[in-house]
């Protein structure tokens, strides 16, 4: 079993890498058997969530591929041209136009956001090219509301901040794909200050919206969810959101998910809280089974002989189509990663040991177990060449922009590479510019991800849709206390970034 996680898919050609792994499994006879194959994660397949949020019982949600939206609203072609040259930019843009022309991208950012409601993540930070996203897209949004348990750059960009209760101030549970357990998050203390459970905040907003819609006699608003016409009746929003008053609290929604999800023990939330955690059904082995509350997709074909969604119905390694006309896409063969010319070092990033994404990364105790501020790992030889010592502040830069962080000089990093734990909020950097200022990859749309109507290559949010990549660029660094070096000749963007 190759546990791929969400690492390889952060490269533009990550899909090819994973196709290569699958091909390797097939060629070596390691497909369709216990311990074989490849897995990114075992998705929690909680039917309760589907019933509540997507299947018409509750409010009905639409998931869009944000990278496509960003491409349209943030002038992705111009970003690519500036970074990687016209050839690459035109190539990707051609595929993008073709996909739109063919109706393959149902939600590609035709209309700008009038209002943004941010919840569940630090939106203004996590996107590739975060700085540019804030400047080109977010700055044009009229009203931004953020629900968050801690302050962040997203909160700073917001007109309204609604404080959300912390994990142990609310009733909830957690399912994580690599463990078979459903683990309780119970309320140990009441929410701090004005903060509230996030489900309660949404319910109260739904109630207020319903009241306004009734007062305005608002007719149902027509919309389209994955090709199906729907009408959102905001006068009924409160009823829909609370399932006609059935769900009044976060405890109730947790109970609804337990009751309505296959493979989860049918117990009360209180019983779950008492036990702390319970095991999902059918969750032995490296791949959880059909009756488990996790996705069964990977086993459906190998065990139950259910055909794959490919054109051939089998695992398919060759794409023969003009849709993926570039010959190097037909088979998973090597192509060099994209780089920005003139910058010798590749910066990669990964999850921090000290936290998850940006949440609580500013915790004083955890900071005392690091360097107290954002740091970047550099190779000793690369550092010597630039007269950088361990602990010096360095400016990491390329033609898009730059950011400043402390150098951690370590032999664990190969020459020609830099590494930084991601998740540091821009608020913790000089000029509020974090690595997002130098990551120019937001507009890299993989042509094979834009293709539809070719077997399994079909627009399918969360499964097969254009994704953001994060590693396809290069940088250089220099000591922060020295005068910035002259921008590379002919590189206007670098001059602009420094001016």
């Amino acid at each position, binding site marked *: 079993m190759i546990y791929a996680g969400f690492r390889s898919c952060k490269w533009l050609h990550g899909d090819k890498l994973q196709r290569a792994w699958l091909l390797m499994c097939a060629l070596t006879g390691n497909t369709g058997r216990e311990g074989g194959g490849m897995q990114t994660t075992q998705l929690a397949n909680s039917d309760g969530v589907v019933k509540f949020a997507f299947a018409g019982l509750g409010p009905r949600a639409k998931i869009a591929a944000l990278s496509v939206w960003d491409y349209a609203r943030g002038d992705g072609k111009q970003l690519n041209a500036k970074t990687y040259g016209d050839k690459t930019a035109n190539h990707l843009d051609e595929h993008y136009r073709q996909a739109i022309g063919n109706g393959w991208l149902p939600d590609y950012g035709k209309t700008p956001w009038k209002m943004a409601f941010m919840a569940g993540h630090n939106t203004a930070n996590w996107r590739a090219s975060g700085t540019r996203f804030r400047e080109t897209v977010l700055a044009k949004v009229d009203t931004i509301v953020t629900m968050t348990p801690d*302050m962040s750059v997203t*909160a*700073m960009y917001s007109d309204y901040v609604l404080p959300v209760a912390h994990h142990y101030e609310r009733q909830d549970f957690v399912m994580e794909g690599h463990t078979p357990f459903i683990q309780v998050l119970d309320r140990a203390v009441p929410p701090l200050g004005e903060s509230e459970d996030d489900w309660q905040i949404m319910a109260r907003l739904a109630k207020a919206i319903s009241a306004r819609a009734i007062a305005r006699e608002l007719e149902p608003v027509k919309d389209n969810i994955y090709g199906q016409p729907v009408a959102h009746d905001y006068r009924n929003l409160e009823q829909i959101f609370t399932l006609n008053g059935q769900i009044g609290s976060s405890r109730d929604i947790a109970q609804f998910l337990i009751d309505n999800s296959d493979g989860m023990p049918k117990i009360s939330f209180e019983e779950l809280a008492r036990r702390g955690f319970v095991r999902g059904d059918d969750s032995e082995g490296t791949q959880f089974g059909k009756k488990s509350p996790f996705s069964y997709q990977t086993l459906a074909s190998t065990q139950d002989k259910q055909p794959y969604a490919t054109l051939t119905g089998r695992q398919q390694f060759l794409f023969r189509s003009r849709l993926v006309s570039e010959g190097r896409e037909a088979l998973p063969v090597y192509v060099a990663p994209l780089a920005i010319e003139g910058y010798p070092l590749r910066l990669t990033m990964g999850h921090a*040991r*000290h936290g998850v994404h940006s949440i609580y990364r*500013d915790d*004083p*105790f*955890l*900071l*005392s*177990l*690091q*360097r*107290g*501020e954002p740091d970047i*790992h550099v*190779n000793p030889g690369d550092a010597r060449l630039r007269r950088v010592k*361990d*602990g010096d502040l360095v400016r990491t830069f390329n033609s898009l922009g730059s950011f400043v962080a402390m150098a*951690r*000089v*370590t*032999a*664990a*990093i*190969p*020459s020609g590479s830099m590494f930084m734990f991601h998740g540091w*909020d821009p*608020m*913790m*950097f*000089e*000029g*509020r510019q974090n690595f997002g200022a130098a990551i120019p990859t937001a507009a890299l749309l993989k042509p094979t991800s834009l293709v539809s109507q070719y077997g399994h290559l079909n627009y399918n949010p969360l499964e097969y849709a254009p994704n953001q990549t994060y590693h396809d660029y290069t940088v250089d660094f220099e000591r922060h206390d020295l005068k910035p070096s002259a921008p590379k000749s002919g590189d206007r963007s670098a001059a602009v970034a420094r001016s």
Partner: protein
Amino acid sequence: MPRQIAMVIDLNKCIGCQTCTAACKSLWTDEAGQENMLWNNVETKPGPGYPKNWEEKGARSGWKDGAIQLGGLHEDEDYGNVSTLNHEEVYFKGTEQRLQRKEPLRSGANWDEDVSSGDFPNNYHFYMPRLCNHCTKPACLEACPVRAIYKREQDGIVLVDQDKCVGTRMCNQACPYDKVYFNHMVSKSQKCVFCFPRIEKGEAPACARQCPGRLRFVGYLDDLDGPIAKLVHKLKVALPLHAEYGTEPNVYYVPPLLPQTFDEEGRFSDRSRVPLEYLQGLFGAGVEPALATIAAEMARRKSGEPSELMDLLIAKDWKSLFKIKDVQLV
């Protein structure tokens, strides 16, 4: 008959997540005056550790020729500390400052995390958790002029009596492991208590119980059926840290295995990455036979034979890590 509780830490499984450090900190040292204290810490080795360069002071402390040596005191900055951030200024007062600690950190408990030795790709480092060794011959106890430090008969846990301590800091100078701390707010020395209230209830110390890697074993040294006696005395794979300091520590370490280096063509060579001499400098002459035993048992297990040692170290059942209550005396 005095008894001794002990801990074995398997360094092959430590990922440096600091869950032990956080468990200890939130249970015992989150009060004013304890900001720089980590009764339990995890440091990257080779490296200066916490407090910074403690081994240099260690060599000047502990026992020598039957007498206690006082190795001096560290500077405050060798410990690093917890500092609040300028949240108020940044988020609510509209300043242009970046969000940062009010006192910048210039060295600290985990400053050298992942700072590796050697050259890529044959660089090497590993994580080493440390806590009070609850020594059989505690230098701190010997050094205290007011007899505030005592060693319990029933489990050998070494405690500083907070009512008797007058803050001479002699214990801080004597401990070669730098595991006694000074609380400036109350002018008393404080240190790891091996979670004795938990031990008395039959529970493992918080650092051991919270460890996600299941790498800490806790039990009595004289319990021949327990994990400690097996790893320390029977199989001899767990070794004391810096035994030459002379205090007879009761925290033992399973030394890290020695991965091979890559040769110029990217193939494994037969040279080890971590120099054996470095490990011997930490854990003494027992390193070589201990590693040989582990290698032999791994080979046995690979060939399908049973191995008591591998069963113990893999620890499929977390309860097998601890044997604290209902111990049969031998």
